[in-house]
């Protein structure tokens, strides 16, 4: 499975390129609009082309990510996918309650995390040791919050609440409790 860091790098490149381009366009426009010279009539055709371009862009973004980001279709179909391993985690009083002190996973397993909360809205996220995010979801009380993930290489991850649950929520970190082995 493609790593979430790869996806973010791709996004960073695309967005940075766009930002530089649009700033250049605006700077050019600001310069030109103050110069002498009558403007030629702008044809509606240009407008319709632009509209078409936006439509294509808006629609294709989601199609492209659906085809390239593997966890997207997997997440949408997760109810029909059988997990190799399942962990039931509950949350209450600003604490995670894990089924075992460490969550052991073997490489390439599809793992389902079922997280429930008995009081507040929390978050459930897995983070690398450099604090970057692998994935996260919201944890709402009174609902089953499940996420399916395939781990395709060995590693160690921390669990952290990603949603604010009052000032006490900042300490909700369990370091290095998810271990993926060969």
């Amino acid at each position, binding site marked *: 499975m493609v790593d*979430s860091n790869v996806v973010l790098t791709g*996004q960073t490149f695309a967005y940075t390129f766009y930002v530089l381009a649009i700033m250049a366009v605006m700077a050019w426009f*600001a310069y030109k609009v103050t110069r002498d010279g009558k403007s030629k009539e702008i044809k509606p055709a240009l407008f319709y082309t632009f509209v078409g371009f936006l439509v294509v862009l808006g629609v294709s*973004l989601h199609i492209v990510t659906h085809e390239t980001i593997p966890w997207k279709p997997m997440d949408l179909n997760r109810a029909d996918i059988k997990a190799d391993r399942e962990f039931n985690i509950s949350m209450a009083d600003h604490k995670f309650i894990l089924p075992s002190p460490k969550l052991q996973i073997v490489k390439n397993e599809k793992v389902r995390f079922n997280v429930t909360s008995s009081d507040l809205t929390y978050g459930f996220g897995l983070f690398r040791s450099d604090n970057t995010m692998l994935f996260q979801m919201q944890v709402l009380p*009174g609902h089953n919050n499940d996420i399916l993930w395939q781990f395709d290489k060995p590693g160690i991850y921390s669990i952290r609440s990603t949603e604010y649950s009052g000032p006490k929520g900042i300490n909700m970190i369990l370091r290095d409790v998810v271990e993926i082995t060969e």
Partner: protein
Amino acid sequence: MSFIKTLLGGEGEFFNPNSLTPMQKLTLRFVVVGLVYYLFAVFEGMIMRVYQVTPISLINESQYFAILTAHPLVGIFGSTYSIVFGAFLFLVPFLMKKPLWSIKLGNWTMVLVAVGTFVFWFSGFVSHYSPLYTLYWPLPADFTQFSVWGGTFFITGIALVMIGTAFFVINIYKTITYTPEGWEKQPKGALIKSALGLTGLTSIFSKKKKEHLVSLPVAAIARGTVDTALNAIVILFAGILILVYMVAELFGVSLKHSTIDALLYKNFFWWGLDLIADGLVLIFVAGTWYLLATLITGKKLFMENWARAALFIEMVVSWTVWSHHLMSDQAQPGILKVLSGEMVTAFELITQGLAFFITLVTLWSGRPLKMTHPLKFLLGGLLGFALAVPAGIMQADLGLNRILHNTQWIVGPHVHVAILVGLTMTLYSAIYFLLPILTNGAKLYSEKLATFHFWAHLLGGIGMGAFMGMAGLKGMLRRTIYFEGEYSSYMILAAISGSLLLFAFLAFFYNIVMTVGIKGVIGIFMPSKLNTTDLLPAEK
């Protein structure tokens, strides 16, 4: 001595508050209130910027989150609502060439927004009530973490703002439809239909094209105001629900939180809240762009019928996109995430892209233009949305949201760039444009300061958004505290950009005070000497 003289009396003593009509005073009061609360929001923002570099011992965690709770609410309600309401209560009658329906009600709106904002800000500051603006159930009613009394006052403050908002909505619709004394009877129904875009909708299918009864900017204001009204209803309703729990608690009865379904509540609340973010802001801003572009160039709006249609689509879209805030909620049905979250949201790229394009072409048609302050800020505002809307579309994607949700990416390149660079610069453009009209010819104290204001604000806003975004891509969450300096290098850069924003505002504030003088500012809040419902004083 000339400095003192200018400070008191304003630049060249051009500004005389006694020459102002009650309408001009009303609008200027809104602007003053809005700017004062903007200063609140900037200071709070700076405190948080410093805190994110290194958590200072002076402020404990609960105080930090109280600031985090108040900051967006002060910014949106205290500042933006004030400036927008003031401007639109002036512009609707101005564009329709009839008096405002009720100046008194307008003043009540101003007072309620100003007082309500102070009440919720102050009670949050004192009691540290901090469920954030998202109020995820049952957090706002969690009295093991928050004081009941603090929360009660907090919610009451918000309710006051919402009542003021309701008065604004009534005033706008009444002004569009009522018949002023001595006028021929106004066609109420037809005016409403035209303002909302229903006339345009039916005329698509009819052969003969009818004249539009209300101008495009008025239509934009009317459609945005629908969202304002719906939003006020939702927030009031949520506020009453929370108050019920609070009052019960004060009487010693703890109600069961689980009676309210957290997911249903979240859907309902985001549906309403999103009307500010995706409805109000986008529609009002597009309308303001169109108005400013035509005023600056004196030309007709390019593709006007398309612009009208886009505003209508935007209004309908804004009612149906809320699920993009629930993409990481696994209990939310997948179909809602895909349809409302991804698909309908992508329409905002189209509607906002259209508004961007139409405004630019209209400006182009007026070539050559002088690079005035209103034009400069308008271009800044356009750039702000050109940056922030695609950032928003990216996070409204199921694949990307999994790793962007609740990170600094959301609040940096999307929220803060949209609000600070997009919305605020658009409002500044309007303020610089309207200043001489509203003050009967006051002269700006310093052109250089205004230019500094522009550059410092633009660079500060984009810079802050960019560095927050970079931290977000590296996993930095938006609503927590990092104690080990994990992201301090990004946060230092963001704080430097933030201080540019602060300096920009201080320069602007100083410039305005020196323009109208302290006596002038006080004069704005004194009752008008002129007994007229006219917008501007009669020509001598």
